């Protein structure tokens, strides 16, 4: 009955389902980065001068700094000169006007990914922006959204149509000096999504972006900017996949959210980049900077993430709680299997009075994966009566994986209340045996236990995403432990 090892290997053996490659002619820059590359990207996108200058400043700064090494992650050095910084499906260079103009092969790709790009989208009530390698290929429901004054478009289009908003907000939440990967992104970002919700508007549908890395040897550097004006409300979802390739691919995104007075932003991610194979070959290096600036009083941001993919995840969606009474939430499920590594968590910076934050982090490790929760709760002297509650639970499957917790707290105001709870547990033989004794297969038992473990996070996800996330988790961990 000693089947434990075999079963762990079965989990590990589950194949990545999004590993197909789409055969599309692409305009791809040769690998390498220098000022000419940046000028090329900016020129290709017909950008105004302020943006080119900002990119160049970012690039020059980037050259003076080094990769951070404080995370509990190990990987071979990244050769930034061996990455192509621009890849566009050829046809997209002629900018498709509507879905009908989009290469059917691209649409097929999104079909395989299960993205509701066509009519299904309307049924689902989800507006989708899809970013394929470096270029945004289609945004659905633009006109319907425009009726309520909502702008939801590819970032590069926003640069053309609304340069004043870009100039006003870009880099104000994540400055290019913020960190190494943010600086790189600021220099070479190619596309992403832009959302603007005007004052008092409740966005009439869920907004959603799907990112896909297709070309070999390309990096994806998308930039997302969401501005929620006073009293507005938006729920935004992003999903990510990439084909299976032997080499590692770099993904360094920046997401900036701005919430003004009484505004609310709900940002959900299901990240399923290719994680690499059983031996740790290939997979996406996911170095992402996400931050929300709660500038106005009573504003609220809620980050919900399900991180299942990527060989390496380095990601700390954060909240700057500047406005009085502003609220920050972070709900996270991270799954690492095989040789995946994740160092993820959040930063809650309490500046305003009566600011509140909640952090619920659920980490699941299997195979030989290593996972760390890293979180900073910082209470500034100005943050009277700030409150934080952090709960951080780790679940281990098998005995070769690791879970680590690095909570940091800096409390500069004595009226603050900061709570931290952490647990680490193994899916016990006891739990599995109990389920199996009642007639559940081992696989169903593991799925049930893991989903139960993640419940507090899943219930924060919009309905369709919650179903997707649950299925993704089941696939990632199929087979279970004994």
């Amino acid at each position, binding site marked *: *009955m*000693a*089947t434990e090892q075999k079963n762990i290997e079965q989990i590990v053996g589950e194949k990545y389902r999004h590993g197909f490659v789409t055969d599309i002619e692409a305009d791809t820059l040769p690998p390498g980065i220098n000022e000419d590359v940046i000028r090329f990207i900016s020129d290709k996108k017909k950008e105004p001068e302020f943006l080119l200058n900002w990119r160049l400043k970012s690039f020059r700064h980037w050259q003076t700094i080094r990769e951070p090494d404080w995370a509990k992650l190990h990987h071979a050095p990244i050769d930034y000169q061996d990455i192509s910084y621009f890849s566009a499906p050829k046809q997209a260079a002629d900018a498709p006007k509507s879905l009908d103009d989009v290469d059917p092969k691209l649409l097929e790709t999104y079909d395989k990914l299960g993205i509701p790009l066509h009519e299904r989208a309307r049924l689902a009530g989800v507006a989708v922006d899809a970013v394929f390698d470096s270029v945004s290929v289609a945004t659905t429901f633009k006109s319907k959204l425009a009726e309520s004054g909502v702008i939801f478009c590819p970032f590069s289009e926003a640069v053309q149509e609304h340069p004043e908003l870009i100039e006003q907000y870009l880099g104000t939440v994540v400055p290019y000096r913020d960190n190494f990967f943010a600086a790189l992104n600021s220099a070479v970002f190619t596309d992403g999504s832009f959302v603007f919700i005007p004052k008092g508007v409740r966005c009439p549908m869920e907004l959603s972006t799907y990112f896909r890395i297709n070309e070999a040897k390309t990096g994806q550097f998308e930039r997302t900017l969401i501005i929620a004006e006073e009293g507005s409300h938006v729920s935004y979802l992003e999903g990510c996949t990439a084909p299976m390739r032997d080499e590692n691919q770099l993904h360094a995104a920046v997401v900036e959210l701005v919430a003004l007075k009484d505004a609310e932003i709900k940002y959900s991610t299901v990240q399923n980049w290719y994680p690499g194979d059983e031996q740790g070959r290939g997979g996406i290096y996911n170095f992402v900077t996400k931050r929300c600036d709660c500038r106005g009083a009573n504003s609220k941001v809620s980050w919900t993430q399900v991180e299942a993919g990527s060989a390496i995840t380095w990601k700390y969606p954060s909240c700057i709680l500047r406005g009085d009474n502003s609220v920050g939430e972070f709900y996270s499920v991270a799954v690492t299997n095989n040789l995946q590594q994740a160092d993820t968590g959040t930063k809650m910076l309490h500046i305003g009075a009566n600011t509140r934050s909640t952090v619920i982090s659920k980490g699941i490790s299997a195979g030989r994966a290593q996972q760390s929760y890293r979180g900073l709760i910082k209470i500034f002297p100005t943050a009277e009566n700030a409150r934080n509650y952090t709960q951080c639970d780790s679940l281990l499957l098998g005995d070769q994986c690791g879970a680590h917790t690095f909570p940091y707290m800096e409390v500069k105001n004595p009226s603050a209340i900061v709570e931290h709870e952490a647990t680490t547990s193994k899916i*016990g*033989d*006891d*739990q599995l*045996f*109990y*389920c*199996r*004794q*009642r*007639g*559940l*297969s*081992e696989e*169903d038992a593991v799925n*049930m*236990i893991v*989903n*139960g*473990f*993640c*419940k*507090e996070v899943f219930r924060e996800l919009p309905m369709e995403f919650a179903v997707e996330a649950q299925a993704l988790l089941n696939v990632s961990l199929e087979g279970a432990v*004994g």
Partner: protein
Amino acid sequence: MKLDIRNLHVSVGGTEILKGLSLEVGTGEVHAIMGPNGSGKSTLAHILAGRSGYEVTSGTVTYNGENLLEMEPEQRAWAGIFLGFQYPIEIPGVNNSYFLKAALNAKRKYLQQPEIDAIQFLKLVKEKARLMKMDQSFLNRGVNEGFSGGEKKRNEIFQMSVLEPTLAVLDETDSGLDIDALKTVAEGVNRLRSDDRAFLLITHYQRLLDYIQPDFVHVLADGRIVRTGGRELALDLEAQGYDWVTTGT
């Protein structure tokens, strides 16, 4: 239903726990297994349910003529074996009735019966919960999550009543129960007694047998059944202590 254990030897980590245990259980029968701590009672329960970590060094166990020892735990459950745990396990975040529905449907699938639908299931569990004097809110809590010891045991019998096993092995179901809970649990078991179902009650004290009348009482000592009798054997044990049988005087 027919359970046949013959000359069973079982070791844990090189230490022999069961040393030639033989037992036959026929359908409709209620057997009580009594014995001092460390005599191998729980080992027997675990072996029947297929828990890992035990090594069967010799002997056989057949269930309806099939080699039980070769079956996976879930296969045994589908074949009608239910184990009431001495220490029921918590599964946080997994809804009690969702769990039970999945278990019931797994069994029905094996028996090639259609899955029970949500409405039928709800009706079924509400009725069973009522009989077990369990509050409806039980159904929507996590499996055993934050339950008191008595609630956990009651939940075991409740699960048993929904799953309708043909052989129920109840491992120290009476331990840690106050008298009211004990009565409820015993009523639950008595209600399920039938000609096509057998029970193996594993208990340290004869108290349980005041409420559930067994057909046979076996005394397990040092890995073997040392004495078998009727209901009166339990009373003798209570009066004279286990030394009476283990020392053979």
